[in-house]
């Protein structure tokens, strides 16, 4: 009898996984039974013609000790909803994230750090989410393309399955049983378990199902990208070669050497943009003024970089909240020794535009992503905005392209949690951090104090991700930190 463990964020998710696997077993002539050890630990016994298996669920990660080292290491990158683990071999077989949340706004990206963490460790990963969701305004929304594109890029780079599957349809939003996603997910998971316990390679005989899954991902991107962005590199290949490209991704997932069509999902330089997109690039107004964001917009107008859309929403905050957060940020700012040249905290509530109902805008630019052709240009712009950094920022990669990501959050510590870590890991991956040559990644936090990221701070999920994915962080007052080198500028 083979014994595996299902570690899960909650017992419900672990139990749900086992029950779905049990359904497949029973449909194929096997049996599935569950007993509850100690009155609460689900122990599922699965019998098939080929093997017998026991799956024990450990729900609520934080409840258990010791958490296996392999599980703990994965959780430090964000907590998947469930993980299949062989304690004897100390091996994770797969990890899964699933969500019932309406895939709108920040929700769509807020779990993406979990995709990154698993892919980085070459753990097969599936993300099951609703393609169609009902917004609180009653309208139907469709999922963002970003998690899917992120998963495609991670598959190719890490040579491991990294798959986004959708459930629901427009008639049945958020309905797990509508669409193919649920069935496709558990068919794959059962196949992996089956391969593993019978001594085969875990992806044995999965080429066809992986191809189908990548094909559905590519078709989803093809049908949805125009709702999100102005252009998609390689869009023409999606139309003409999606079956061939799906096979390439399936091959990559199985670790085979593959070469995608040139520049497929690789974001170009300004000069290579489609004419109709390049023509639309112009400086745009900010919602809340910020010296660096103003210059980023100027640079777009001058053709030094570009944005993909300008639909960042503003979620105004109450006056009391802003006052409290500004005070906390100021205390944080001066909680460390002074820098040379000195940096000044100058956020004031009067900086924040007031809405009609008396709340305050914190959103600066309507874009949170800028793609620069050259670090040289962005570096000069940062130095122009914050003269204290003049001549200090590293220039060895001046000719490299750069992603500038902005988080306007003002709540202390928030940038290290949801949804910002998910956004940052998604955008860094999607826009080229792992490409050859890699794009640099700079994150700008106009309302956050640098002391939260100083070297020596206790690691959290956000710092772990930022250490790996960013080249430079810029904080309020123009303080810059490289988490990779530990330099503070």
């Amino acid at each position: 009898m083979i014994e595996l463990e299902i570690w899960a964020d909650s017992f419900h998710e672990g139990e749900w996984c086992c029950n779905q696997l049990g359904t497949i077993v029973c449909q194929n002539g096997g049996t599935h039974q569950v007993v509850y050890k100690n009155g609460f630990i689900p122990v599922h016994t699965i019998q098939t013609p080929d093997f017998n298996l026991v799956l024990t669920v450990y729900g609520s990660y934080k409840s258990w000790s010791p958490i296996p080292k392999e599980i703990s290491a994965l959780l430090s990158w964000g907590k998947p909803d469930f993980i299949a683990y062989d304690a004897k071999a100390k091996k994770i077989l797969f990890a899964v994230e699933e969500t019932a949340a309406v895939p709108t706004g920040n929700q769509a990206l807020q779990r993406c750090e979990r995709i990154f963490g698993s892919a980085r460790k070459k753990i097969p990963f599936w993300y099951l989410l609703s393609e169609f969701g009902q917004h609180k305004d009653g309208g139907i929304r469709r999922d963002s393309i970003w998690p899917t594109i992120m998963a495609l890029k991670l598959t190719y780079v890490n040579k491991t399955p990294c798959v986004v599957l959708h459930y629901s349809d427009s008639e049945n939003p958020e309905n797990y049983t509508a669409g193919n996603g649920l069935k496709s997910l558990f068919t794959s998971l059962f196949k992996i378990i089956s391969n593993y316990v019978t001594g085969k390679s875990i992806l044995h005989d999965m080429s066809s199902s992986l191809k189908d899954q990548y094909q559905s991902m590519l078709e989803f991107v093809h049908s949805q990208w125009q709702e999100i962005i102005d252009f998609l590199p390689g869009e023409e290949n999606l139309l003409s070669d999606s079956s061939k490209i799906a096979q390439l991704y399936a091959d990559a997932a199985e670790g085979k050497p593959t070469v995608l069509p040139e520049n497929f999902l690789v974001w170009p330089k300004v000069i290579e943009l489609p004419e109709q997109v390049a023509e639309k690039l112009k400086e745009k107004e900010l919602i809340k003024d910020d010296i660096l964001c103003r210059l980023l917009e100027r640079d777009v107008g001058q053709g030094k970089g570009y944005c993909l859309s300008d639909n960042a929403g503003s979620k105004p905050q109450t006056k009391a909240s802003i006052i409290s957060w500004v005070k906390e940020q100021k205390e944080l700012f001066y909680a460390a020794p002074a820098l040379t040249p000195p940096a000044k905290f100058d956020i004031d509530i009067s900086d924040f535009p007031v809405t009609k109902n008396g709340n305050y805008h914190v959103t600066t630019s309507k874009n949170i992503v800028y793609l620069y052709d050259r670090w040289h240009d962005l570096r000069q712009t940062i130095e122009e905005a914050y003269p204290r950094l003049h001549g200090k920022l590293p220039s060895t990669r001046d000719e490299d392209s750069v992603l500038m990501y902005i988080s306007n959050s003002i709540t202390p510590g928030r940038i290290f949690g949801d949804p910002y870590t998910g956004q940052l890991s998604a955008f860094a991956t999607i826009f080229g951090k792992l490409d050859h040559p890699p794009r640099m990644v700079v994150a700008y936090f106009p309302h956050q104090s640098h002391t939260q990221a100083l070297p020596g701070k206790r690691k959290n999920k956000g710092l772990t991700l930022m250490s790996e994915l960013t080249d430079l962080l810029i904080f309020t007052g123009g303080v810059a930190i490289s988490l990779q080198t530990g330099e503070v500028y």
Partner: protein
Amino acid sequence: MASYSFKLTEEIARWAFEILINQSQEWYIAFTNPTAGPWKRVMALDETGLEGEVHRFARDEERPDLLLVSDKYRLIIILEAKDSLTKLITDSQIEKSANVVLSLARLLKEKESNNFWGKRAHYTVVAGLLWGAEQRTTEKERQEAFKAYQSYLTNEENLCSPILLGIESYRDKEGGITCTGYVSHQGEIYEGFTGKSLLEALPVQM
């Protein structure tokens, strides 16, 4: 099988009780509040046995930890859970939890036109507390907790029964969990159905 020790968290205390409810023929879970997944709606069966949505919680809407329904006993139980009784009786927690119970009870009473809820809008609502315990709580501690909640739950709308339910998920020395039920007093929840009847109707120890 590898051996792991566990902390008696709210999740484990609640989950142990959910298992008992799921094994019962007379009760079902209309809503539970784990961290994620396809469980963030109040669901119920219509007269043909088809399951459907009764209420969908908004992202920022306060939710109870567990909502139980019994068509046999015409009862709804709305439970708040914590890993200890002590954590349930801080002033801020009592007010928050009591408001969740009252607002959900009010909402469910207005759902008669929902096909999946229908006549359940007239069922009696019982407020409940569920806690984890490494040591058995005393009668005095439980009564103090019930009393604290009753002062918040009693109002002119008569949204819920004056009798409160307590579920203690007790962890024994061997790591086993057993669930024991208590009520604030033994009066009638509705005519002919007392606090004692409620405990007998639930799949818990008394």
